[in-house]
């Protein structure tokens, strides 16, 4: 994974899946859900976030439901990564499976809204160039990096199946 650069959107602890993907919209596709992503916490989030921006949060990000639209909505909006002090287990797996980089960073609370930041998944760190800070993150295990590198579990499976069907490509 290469580094990504963007602006920080900062949230607190226990950001839940109903905030990320509100239930009333779950019957629709991700385009509709994404329009309401995080609106309970920041009504203008979906309108203001730009491709490459980064969501930064406190503990237990993605608590609650297994609905992977929570991660899909962020990815649809172009969010390049989520950096949080910790993640809820199911959300963390979902994010990786959808190719959305997630980094656990104990010092995520040092990031302020609007900070420019560079997220380096391979190097497991977040750099705040305008503030001269580099925050260390928990390294992403190799088997999850492999899924992220493929772009998510679906393309990962696609490659695996192709390799099985054609074990000796020319």
């Amino acid at each position, binding site marked *: 994974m290469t580094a990504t650069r963007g602006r920080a959107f900062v949230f607190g602890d*226990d950001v*839940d899946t*109903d*905030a990320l993907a*509100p*239930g*009333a919209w*779950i*019957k*629709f596709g991700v385009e509709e859900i994404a329009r309401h992503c995080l609106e*309970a916490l920041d009504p203008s989030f979906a309108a203001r976030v730009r491709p490459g921006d980064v969501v930064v949060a406190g*503990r*237990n990000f993605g*608590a*609650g*439901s*297994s*609905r*992977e639209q929570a*991660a899909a909505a962020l990815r649809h909006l172009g969010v390049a990564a989520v950096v949080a002090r*910790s993640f*809820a*287990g*199911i959300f*963390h*797996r*979902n994010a990786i*499976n*959808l190719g959305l980089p997630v980094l656990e960073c104990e010092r995520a609370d040092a990031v302020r809204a609007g900070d420019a930041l560079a997220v380096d998944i391979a190097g497991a760190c977040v750099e705040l160039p305008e503030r001269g800070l580099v925050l260390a993150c928990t390294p992403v*295990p*190799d*088997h999850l990096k*492999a*899924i992220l590198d493929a772009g*998510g*579990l*679906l393309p*990962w*499976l*696609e490659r695996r*199946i192709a390799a099985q069907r054609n074990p000796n490509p020319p």
Partner: protein
Amino acid sequence: MIVPTPHPDRTVSPASPQTLAQKLVARAAGRGRVTPGEIVTCRVDLAMMHDSGGPRRVGPMLERLGAKPWDPSRVVVVTDHYVPVHDEESRRIVAVARDFAAQHSVRALHDGIGICHVVLPEQGHLRPGMFVVGGDSHSPTGGAFGCYAFGVGATEMLGVLVTGEIWLKVPHTVRIRWDGRFGPGVSAKDAMLRLCGALGMDGGGYHAVEYCGEAVEALSMRERMTMANMTAELGGQAGLFAPDATTRAWLGEAGVHEVDVETWRSDPSAAVLAEHRFDASSLAPQVAAPHSPANAAPVDVHAGTPLTAAYLGACTGAKLDDLRMAASILRGRRCAEGLRLMVAPASRRDETIAREEGTLGALLEAGAELLPTACGACAGYGAHRFGDDDVVIASTARNFRGRMGAPGSRVYLASPYTVAASAVAGTIADPREFL
């Protein structure tokens, strides 16, 4: 399936004791033993999907891969989130679930007969020792039966369907011991809200949470299901109970025989990450204020809060035992003027038994409105959403802002006893004054 890295060296001696979680995961991984923290690949005994997160999302991805479920006899499809259908989208979503089951020869389609986590054991799909993956966060409910059961998202479920396998970081165990016995008017829901308040919504750390102690052993299977279910609110991956004679008797009634209740328990000296001890006999009824289950406090902190509605529903709060608890308060009483009491039984089977024995009658005579057996307002996916001015007490699992209705709606979580007592009082009330 997705573990290219080799297993790390294991230095444990062959005789080292194992937790229940380790034993369950080791079996699924085809290993003699496993060590917390290592990454293993597990074979899945059962994969459960519901109408919302299942076929409509997994089906198109399966088609893109040109793949089929690895073993249709190990797949269960339940419609519960969008039943009964109430608009064009819900009609389509439920139709997709039915078509998926037919297309892929999935014989276990349980269509509109209850909430998936209750339907699974009722229909005899669970037995101790199984490794179960569910497309819903409350899938830990199966841990009440000594299964390693946990929730995943749709793409993860795709991986399971294609390969029959899933990777797992072998969990540590957080043990919760409830000493003594719960007092009158106090239930498993109160115990779980107390735990959420004490440990927080990430207190489970995505580990296995194991429940034990005198009070836990005395619980009925449906009460154990309530505890295992709300392991999700504690942030645990799985919520485990060692199966016993109570498990065997309940499963026997569900048609599951030859239940092994000897193997599936932690060795006495197995190492756990933490053990938390609580005294059941001194536990007061708990109420979790908006908008988090972790905002739990003894009922007297919130007593007197005016309410517009009371809701008995969900896999965690409207099983037969829950309906009986509510009836024990509501029998011979009436709901407060102007308060709407709603009951959405967790399964058809529980609803039928409740009707035949008079439990449901007691609720209806008290003024309760009977809603369809489904996830209903708890999921907040469609019908029965609360309004901005509603203040609700509910026996459900989650009270996140806007989950059950408008962003302004306020939901307090409590046991069926407390929901029923509060419905009578019109304000949050201590059920022990109504017993």
